[in-house]
């Protein structure tokens, strides 16, 4: 972001709505803030229309709080619940179509690299499980094969939630959902494993149950995608509406699944990415000391 992009023209300060004034004075652009600073700065996401208790909304809030450089981040989304909040997000973001997010991100990333060769522009894909693993799988994987320098985040609520609760490739085997009236016939697609085979240098599974860890994972995923290669983060976001549990039970649900072993927090870092991150994180630690 160019300097001054976020300065109100003199004379218009008074008429600017409050939320914008807050973004200008206490927003996260150009500042070192993270998940642990939530509550001390104006967040990038404004009020949104997601259901109460929605784990995706929680994940989104955490992701947005973890962006290493929100002032130079462009997000590509896809149709589904996750996109409903995006028009309220204070970074440039693209919706486009259902499933084409990684192809759009490919073109965008390359275009921004052409136009701003001396700047890092982080291109981040945030989409649901249907968009990532079903309808958009080819484009997701090909962006990995091509080693596009983008980060792909899946908000995995294990269901097509926005269209009314249909089984997706990420639904657990046996789950009875719309369009799987006799229960899902095949296991959850092993996308983290696929991501690794397909060329991602950083792969992690996480949930909003562990906010700081999530923040770190997102940050690492974005950093490695600047230099080393594509990264993939799968965030488990159980859906109270379609799986019919109370919205207050979301985090409990995550813990139950963790206990069952059907959701695990994992991280894979390629040796090259490991070295790169160690360099960055070491430098940061030294700085702090």
């Amino acid at each position: 972001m160019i300097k001054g992009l976020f300065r109100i023209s003199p004379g218009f300060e008074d008429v600017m709505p409050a939320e914008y004034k807050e973004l200008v004075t206490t927003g996260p652009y150009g500042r070192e803030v993270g998940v642990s600073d939530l509550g001390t700065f104006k967040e990038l996401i404004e009020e949104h229309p997601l259901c109460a208790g929605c784990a995706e909304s929680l994940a989104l809030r955490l992701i947005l709080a973890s962006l290493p450089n929100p002032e130079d981040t462009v997000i590509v989304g896809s149709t589904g619940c996750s996109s409903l909040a995006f028009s309220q997000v204070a970074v440039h973001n693209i919706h486009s179509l259902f499933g084409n997010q990684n192809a759009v991100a490919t073109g965008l990333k390359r275009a921004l690299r052409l136009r701003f060769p001396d700047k890092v522009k982080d291109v981040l894909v945030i989409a649901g499980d249907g968009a990532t693993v079903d309808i958009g799988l080819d484009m997701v994987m090909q962006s990995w094969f091509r080693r596009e320098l983008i980060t792909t985040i899946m908000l995995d609520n294990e269901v097509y939630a926005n269209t009314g609760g249909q089984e997706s490739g990420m639904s657990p085997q046996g789950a009875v959902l719309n369009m799987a009236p006799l229960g899902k016939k095949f296991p959850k697609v092993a996308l983290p494993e696929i991501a690794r085979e397909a060329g991602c240098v950083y792969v992690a599974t996480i949930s909003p149950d562990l906010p700081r860890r999530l923040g770190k994972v997102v940050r690492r995923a974005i950093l490695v995608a600047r230099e080393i290669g594509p990264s993939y983060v799968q965030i488990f976001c159980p859906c109270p509406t379609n799986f019919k549990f109370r919205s207050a039970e979301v985090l409990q649900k995550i813990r139950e699944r963790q206990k069952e072993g059907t959701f695990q927090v994992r991280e894979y870092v390629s040796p090259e990415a490991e070295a790169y991150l160690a360099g960055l994180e070491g430098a940061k630690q030294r700085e702090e000391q």
Partner: protein
Amino acid sequence: MTTQQVVAPEYLFFEAERERQFMTGSEAVAEAVKRANIDMAISYPITPQSESMHLVGDLYAKGYLKEYFRGESEFAVMAAVAGAAMGGVRVFTATGGPGTLRAFEMFPTWAGARLPIVCAFLTRAVNAPLSIQPDTLEMAFMLDTGILMFHAENAQDLYDMVLKAFVVAEQTDVHIPVGVFADGFFVTHTREQVAVAPADLKLPPYNPYYAPVPVMDMENVPVRQMRDPFVMKSNFISYAAHASWQQEILAAQERARKHVRRYLGDLLDTEHAEAPVLVMAAGTAVSQSREAVAAARREGLEVGLVKLKSLRPFPREEVRVLARQARALIVPEFNRVGWLSREIKSVVEDTTKVIDGPRVFGGMTMPPELILAQIRRCYA
């Protein structure tokens, strides 16, 4: 790579001295791209388009473009091109037939997102049955996607239209995609003489900040900006916003008329427009018609020719005026459904003047004799 100098579009199109070269339509595409100051192109193979995008790849290797790659499918390519355009660069791609249909959902999306992408559609038959041969059926599907549609008669047109398409598409009051259509093989693989401007000239670069919508680069306002939002809540105001948005795309097509007139000469060309019998065609059918018209006139039959260059926007007033004084309009086409004659009938007042056909398809050549026979029947 030749060092190129940026010149005004008008100079490149109308003033710079041209050299005639013997080339295929595919090469004409590349000659246009070479002078278009394009940042990026994305390709996917499909006959009869592949050669064009190979040559664009060669231009990239020589440094005329800054980025180029092969995508994984036509849908993905059209999506990636959209992403690039949203990022503020000038982009080009090409496809044809089944590729057009595979990517179909992206075309209304390009238009709705106000992206000035230029895509060459090197048309071919669509399955089933499988055929790689020329046929313009895909154009029928594209008429209501919101994109501008120019139809090239030959390699010369293809060269000119691809270049001019960028200039028309990028006007602030237009800023919607342009499809430049040319009949596969009949144009792409036919070698003929094409007059091209010097290779050391190129169009001015695209400036994304003149766009009627913000570029997605976090370098311009507003920062809270989604391309493009859900205007889909269940309430009247959001329906009205959606409707107004759609009208705006249609309005952008309307505004393109004056730019098409300026750069392409007009939306249609005429020869002997005063004749009582007119052959009205687009694309390769125009070339076949020229032969038939010339032969008919040698026989003393008074017949004229109307070449439709822009199909979107459609030259409806121009066609209506021409039809008023004509006795018969013959519409030869390279497709089974006759979409052009349907378009013409829907704008002329007396549809009985419109004579459908000849129509050939599936790769068949249209012998000028068929058109000539139709002309003779009008005088029988």
